[in-house]
């Protein structure tokens, strides 16, 4: 049996969800035999494999043009898309900038910041979107893993269920935000 291909993407978020993914302890060993981790911050692979993947976990909210591009690509190239953690599910902390004009944000952070000598970073970083959005506001999403970060147990439960070809049963405390 060929291995299940999984990608993970990291949008506007703190990488805590990826930390939690690595926190699933011995389940990692079980996964190692069953999955192929494709493009992911963990593998540092940047592009989706030819033919796409079975599952993509997206950490973080859609906040800039790169995320917008990637989230659409992920949708096209993944059979199952999972919003991975509160930022992806709700917008969470990154969403709190919504309501502040992006020009003002850039000016406040980069223009007045000391590390950039007042240079605005438009040449090197993707432009911010007007509003930060949860992933499912942009593309359809199959499953949602709540939590900031999602507890390792919930992540393991969801992935193992999918590997078994079952619907992840996310109920009760599994759906706790925060």
């Amino acid at each position: 049996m060929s291995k299940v291909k999984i990608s993970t993407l990291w949008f506007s978020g703190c990488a805590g969800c990826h930390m939690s993914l690595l926190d699933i302890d011995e389940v990692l060993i079980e996964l190692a035999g069953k999955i192929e981790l494709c493009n992911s911050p963990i593998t540092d692979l940047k592009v989706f494999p030819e033919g796409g993947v079975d599952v993509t976990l997206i950490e973080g909210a859609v906040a800039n043009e790169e995320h917008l591009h990637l989230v659409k690509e992920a949708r096209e190239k993944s059979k199952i898309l999972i919003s991975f953690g509160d930022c992806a599910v709700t917008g969470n902390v990154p969403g709190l900038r919504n309501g502040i004009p992006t020009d003002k944000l850039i000016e406040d952070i980069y223009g007045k910041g000391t590390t950039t000598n007042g240079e605005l970073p438009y040449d090197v970083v993707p432009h911010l979107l007007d509003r930060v959005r949860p992933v499912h506001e942009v593309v359809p999403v199959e499953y949602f893993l709540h939590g900031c970060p999602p507890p390792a147990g919930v992540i393991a439960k969801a992935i193992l269920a999918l590997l078994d070809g079952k619907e992840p049963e996310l109920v009760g405390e599994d759906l706790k935000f925060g």
Partner: protein
Amino acid sequence: METITLTIDGRTITAAPGQSILEVAEANGIRIPTLCHLEGLSDVGACRLCIVEVAGQLVPSCTTQAVDGADIKTQTDTIKVHRRMILELLFAEGNHVCSFCASSGGCELQDLACELEMHSVTVPYSYPRNRIDATHPWFLIDRDRCVLCGRCVRTCAEVEGAHTWGFAERGSSARVITDLAADWGEAESCTSCGKCVEVCPTGAIVLKGASNAEMRKDSDLVARLTERRDHE
């Protein structure tokens, strides 16, 4: 004693006349989700989460009297759909960011998301930007976390008798205010009793200094107080 007999979710139940459907259900271990309801306070039927079906009609169980012969359903598919939509609307209305909320882990809204199996908020978020009022020496209110349940308003009026809290404005601008929209720290009627902090179901009204997930509320306080008063 006079009693009435009714059916809830197919169970035949005996109750005292004059009780609300919610009271009868709770007394019989039937869980109905609530948010604006709090034992010890008057019921206002504002949050609509406690809706149940009676004779084909959806009614709030907290303000509807249980009557003899009623056939009540508390968990139909229609009810579940509406409850979840109402909950989504609440999440979309404010900035209910649990990850850095003092009440996280002790929040009724957060618990409702689990109970009602809200996987995601399908309606657009509104991301409000209200000013946090931290002018009171001990308490603060973050109105972006307020669900307008009015528990603080009712507690302040009905239990403390101070009438500091009230409602202002309409529609999506509606908010709770202290005195005539004075800063809380300037609200002369406030006795700083702190009951509003205890009854607030979310992280909107909290103790100053409580950090992420540190705030735990004693929402039964009002019920205990009113019960003791009833005994006097």
